[in-house]
């Protein structure tokens, strides 16, 4: 007989992730209904990877993805999605090859060619769920909006992150942790942006950057503060791994201790999702051996609650 975590944990997390994805796609202008607008900036590449993961559970997400692959792929960063995929399970990255094939073959976006696989995945029921030009921008769509304006690349993402920091200084390392680019690439780009007066730099150690909120609000015509940054790619990566492990039967073990040890691996791998998003989670050092199973269940429930509150 094998031992597993509470059966409803994976289901609750999956449902919470689907709700989050749905809200975020809606905020990016997709023609779907969602109960509310997103409360934090939408990370487009994280949303693609999460939706690919959740495709089996919510087929309509594939319709949205296929729509974006045809008409919106140019707003996605191929380099960034390549940077993020190592955090995700193979099941997700295999499906990215299907998305890439549609973007390349049907969307004519040659940047996706190298990622494209031999298959296009299940046939979508519609590929018209993306509005080509938005009538007014949802505040959560700032990253996509900036990319449309200044081009897909580090510049747009750096500005979006700095604006979300509400005037606070941020180092290259902090920006890199948020965006998934290398510290070197961030520093090189941010220095040029500072030279061009797009952002401010301390100019000395500790080298940090910030964006002039008032100036950018004027440029973007924002009436309210930029929404907060949440570390979605890290949170969705945990969800993706949890779902993949559940589907592989790897969330069950011969003994409670073995289960606890596997769960500890999972929590350690994704500790950034909890640390960066300040999701309350029990200190694993306070739960020896099999006691960690109960602690992990609290961790997972905490993430589900966080997604519901943050999306």
């Amino acid at each position, binding site marked *: 007989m094998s031992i597993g975590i509470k059966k409803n944990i994976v289901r609750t997390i999956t449902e919470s992730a689907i709700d989050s994805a749905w809200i975020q796609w809606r905020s990016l202008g997709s023609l779907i209904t969602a109960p509310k607008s997103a409360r934090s900036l939408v990370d487009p590449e994280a949303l693609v990877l999460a939706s690919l993961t959740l495709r089996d559970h919510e087929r309509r997400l594939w319709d949205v993805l296929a729509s974006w692959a045809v008409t919106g792929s140019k707003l996605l960063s191929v380099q960034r999605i390549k940077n993020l995929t190592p955090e995700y399970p193979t099941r997700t990255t295999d499906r990215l090859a299907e998305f890439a094939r549609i973007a390349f073959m049907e969307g004519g976006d040659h940047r996706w060619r190298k990622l494209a696989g031999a298959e296009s995945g299940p046939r979508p029921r519609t590929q018209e769920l993306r509005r080509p030009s938005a009538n007014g921008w949802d505040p959560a769509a700032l990253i996509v909006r900036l990319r449309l304006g200044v081009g897909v690349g580090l510049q747009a993402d750096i500005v979006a992150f700095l604006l979300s920091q509400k005037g606070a200084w941020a180092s290259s390392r902090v920006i890199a942790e948020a965006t998934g680019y290398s510290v070197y690439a961030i520093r090189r780009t941010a220095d040029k942006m500072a030279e061009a007066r797009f952002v401010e730099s301390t100019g000395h150690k500790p080298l940090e950057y910030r964006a002039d909120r008032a100036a950018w609000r004027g440029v973007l015509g924002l009436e309210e503060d930029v929404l907060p940054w949440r570390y979605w790619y890290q949170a969705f990566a945990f969800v993706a791994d949890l779902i993949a492990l559940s589907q592989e039967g790897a969330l069950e073990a*011969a003994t409670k*201790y*073995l289960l606890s*040890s596997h769960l500890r691996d999972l929590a350690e791998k994704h500790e950034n999702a909890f640390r960066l998003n300040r999701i309350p989670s029990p200190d694993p*050092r*306070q739960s*020896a*051996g099999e006691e*960690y199973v109960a602690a992990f269940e609290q961790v997972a429930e905490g993430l589900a609650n966080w997604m519901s509150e943050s999306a």
Partner: protein
Amino acid sequence: MKAARSGNPEKKAPALLDAIRAVGELLAAEGETAGIVVVGGAALILGGIVSRLTEDVDIIATARSWRKGVPASISRPDPLPASLLRAVSRVARDFILPENWMNAEVGAQWDMGLPPGFEKRVRWQQFGGLSLGIADRRDLIYLKLYAAVDNEEPQSVHYQDLLALRPDKRELAAAAT
């Protein structure tokens, strides 16, 4: 296992048996087996001679050959099998123990020689993929006496363990020779 890394001193330390059982479960899950012979405080705890919860596990020997799934002969524990080291390291993390909670430092005793007939008196227990041999009482007296003479303090753990073994004069004399 003498000092837990946990920052909460009031938290109950994990029982030695839980950690050893965990090593055996990890080995079994990997389809691996290992055989070790333990002495010192861990052997006293496992033998029911003292009632401490935690102790370093001192490995004095590893199984060299097997017969029908049971260790048939032992050898110096140098080096410890890689699969055992992996399991020990994982258990250290999972039970918040020092990295070297199970170690083979006492294997240096082979330079001085083990008590005659030591190997034949080892009692084996099975914990999943781990065959754990416990040294016999008379061998523990021999080794504890050897360790206690280096500690002048009667309060030392070795001295107290030696008392717990309740050796008679004949056994002490035999150990001393």
